[in-house]
Structure formats: structure tokens, C-alpha cells
């Protein structure tokens, strides 16, 4: 972890230069339930990606490829919005990472 700065060295109002600071802050450990994406059921409608409040649905070449478990907080919006029930919410202690 970087050395903590003193109060004189902080940007005005606590702004974070460069933006997109959320990516640096891993919040996956907050999760109680883990979304498991089932590729065989997925029709690539991208509704989960549109709705995810933490930008945690990973897409490549305009296709869902999995979930960013470093940042997903397990809210379940993706599972709720999925028209094909292709995402299961599993209690974290029973969860296994999608391949």
C-alpha cells in the first residue's frame, strides 16, 4: 500500500486526479452472494452489462466473458435482469469461480 499523505498534500475537496479511481479499490470481499454466469444459457443480450452498477460484467469483442469478482459486490441485478436465467446467485461460501 502506498504511503499515506498528510493533510497539506491532498487535492482540494478530496478529488481523485485521473478519475476512474474505483478500479483501484477492490470491493469483491463485500459480496455475500456470487453471480455464476452460465455461458451455455447466455444469449449475449448484454442486459447484465447494461445494468451492472459496478461495471463488473466483463465483455470482450462485445460478448460477455465472465464476472469481475474483484469488484462485484453481489447485488444480483444481473441475475434479476437476465431474460434466460443464465446467472445464478450462489452463497459466497458455496460459490466457485466460473471458468
Amino acid at each position, binding site marked *: 500500500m502506498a504511503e*499515506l*499523505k*498528510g*493533510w*497539506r498534500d*491532498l*487535492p*482540494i*475537496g*478530496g*478529488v*481523485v*486526479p*485521473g*478519475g*476512474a*479511481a*474505483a478500479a483501484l*479499490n477492490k470491493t469483491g470481499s463485500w459480496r455475500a452472494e456470487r453471480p455464476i454466469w452460465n455461458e451455455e444459457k447466455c444469449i449475449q443480450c448484454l442486459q447484465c452489462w447494461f445494468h451492472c452498477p459496478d461495471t463488473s460484467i466483463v465483455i470482450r469483442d462485445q460478448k460477455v466473458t465472465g464476472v469481475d469478482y474483484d469488484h462485484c459486490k453481489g447485488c444480483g441485478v444481473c441475475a434479476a435482469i437476465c431474460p434466460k436465467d443464465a446467472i445464478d446467485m450462489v452463497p459466497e461460501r458455496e460459490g466457485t469461480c466460473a471458468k
Partner: protein
Amino acid sequence: MRKVMTGHKAVAEAMRQIEPDVVAVYPITPQSEIAEYYADYVHDGIVHTELVPVESEHSAMSACVGAAAAGARVMTATSSQGLALLVEVLYIAAGMRLPIVMALANRSLSAPINIHCDHSDAYLARDAGAFQVFCESAQEVYDYTLISQRIAEHDKVRLPGIVNLDGFALTHTSQVVEPLEDEAAKKFVGAFKPVHPLLDVGTPVTWGPFAMPDYYFELKRAQQAAMEEVPAVFLDVQKAYAQTSGRGYAGFVEKYRLDDADRALVVLGSTAGTAKVAVDALRAKGEKVGLLKVWLYRPFPYQAVALALERVKHVAVLDRAISFGAMGSLYSDVATSLLRSGARSALHNYIYGLGGRDITAEQLEEVLADLAEVRPDEVLRYIGLRE
């Protein structure tokens, strides 16, 4: 050119000249005419401001915060219950260091419902992180709106500011005001320089981030440092304003016949005008009495207050709101000033004028006349209250 206008109109005039990019307002009851006047200016094409009519005072300040972070010059106005609803977001504006200037038409807080003048609303916002100025007259209201804008936007400050004007006594009574010419006012306030504007997409920043126990404290300390810059900036801006306007404001307080006084009143706002009449009446009888009017209420000018009162034997501090379960807020500040300086004035706290109860020069004369006889104890006294 001298004009006759109310305090509300004086704020609107100053705002017209400042011409902020965004004004977000909600016409809560009790209503402030400031928003009405300004809406007329927008409608008539006199100003090119985005007027955002929101659904509550909480939203008004929220819209101001968003617009200010985006890089706009922003102003608003509120009063009483509206301030109470807005104050949550005022803390956020201060923490985010957004220079939003707001007129506050001082009126009581419910219950009971009242709408008339007192300082409960200003005291509620006391610890929010906005600097606060109190005005005696419509002229001061106009002048300190311009002055506050420049203080708020100063590089070393970047904080929200509140210009207090007493409900009805200033907001709705007409007085002679001499505004600056438009060009002079605009030149005095200067062009707005946004800091880290969100709309500068080429240099992105995250605004309003989360700060855990490892950084929250440091950010609050930095905010206090900005507040500590206000006094020096206040004096500089006041001086610049004196050059522009010819009105010789100088200092955080106004001393009125105080130099050889052995008894004095300390007040905020329009009551200073009434107090001057009382002081003059007693001076005419040869009594050594004076008045200390506090312009800059937050940050509180401890040293200036102590210096002004150090030779005054008996001091009556008047608070126009009760801080329930404690001595009055202004009293506590004056007491701190004197304690730190080692002055040994006898200090008394009077509560007056709640919910618009009239305060007369005769009542203030009585306070001053009896002041030497009052035993200094930590008990609130009340002016004009029926037993």
C-alpha cells in the same frame, strides 16, 4: 445611482450583476422573493443563467453542488425550513470545496410554525463549513453579496458562503441602496475560474469519493485550513471593495462609539441599527456605552472581538436564537474570545426577538442602563418576554 429597494431586491441586483451560470432554487414557504426576481431576469433575457426550478431545497443545493463540480459559477437563496432541509447538502458543498454563495433570509424554525425573523436557521448552518456574514442594512446585503462571491471563489478559500439578512426587517423593508454600475460590479467579482471541472473531460477527476478512516480526518483538516484563510482574504476583498465602491468597510466587526465605553452590546444583523439609536440616546445623557456589530460570524474573529471589548467592563451579548441547553451561540463565541485574551469583562447573555418579536431601541437602552447592576452569572436573560 441611489435606488430604493428591499433586502431581497438588493440580493437579486447583486446576483444579476454577478450573473452566475446556474441558479437552482425552490420557492419553499416561507418564500423568498430573491428567486422570483431572479426568475424574472432570466425570463426577460436580462441574464443568461440556467435557472433550475427543483422540487425541494435539498435538491436545490444538490443541483448547485453538481453544477459547481461541473465547473459553473453557482448561487442560490433560501430561508428558515428551506435551509434546514438544505443543510445536509451544504456540508457536502463545503467538504467538496465548492464556492456556492447563498443568501439566507433569516427566519425562525418550526415548531410552532412562524415565518418571522430570528437567527435559528443561521445557527443551524453554523458548523456546516460555509463562511457566514451578517448584514445590518440592505446596502450591506448588496455589498456583502458581491464581497462574498469573491471570497468564496478565492484560490485559498473555495468554500460556500452565506450572506445573512434578517427576515422582514431587511428582506421586505425598502431602504436606499447605492449599487455599483454593472461594469464595475462585474469587474470587481471577476471571471470565474473553475477548479477540476467535471466538464473538462480531457483531465478527468473523481469528485465526492469515499474516504475511509485513513483519509477522512486529513480532508477535514484541509477544509479547516481553507476556513482559516477566510479572514485574511475577507480583509483584502473588503479593501478592494472599498476602493471600488467608496464605502469604507474595514474589519470583521464594526465598532460603534466603543472606544471609551464601559458598557456595550454585541449583536448580529439588523438589530445593530436599533442598537445605534439606543447608544446615541444614552450617549446624549453622558453615559459611556457602545456597540460591537459582528459582520463575519464564521469563521469567528476571536481576536478582533477581544481587542474591541478588552476595556469594556460590562458586555451584553444578544442572541436571536436559543441554543437549547446551552448559552447563546454568539455569547459562547464572545466568551471564548475574552477567555483567550485574558480580558475580564463581565459578560451577560440576552435572548431576544424570537419568531419576529420586535426589538426596540428603548429595550436596548434599558439593557445598557442596567448592565452594571446585573450580576454576572451563567443565566440567560430575555428581552421583551412576558413572564
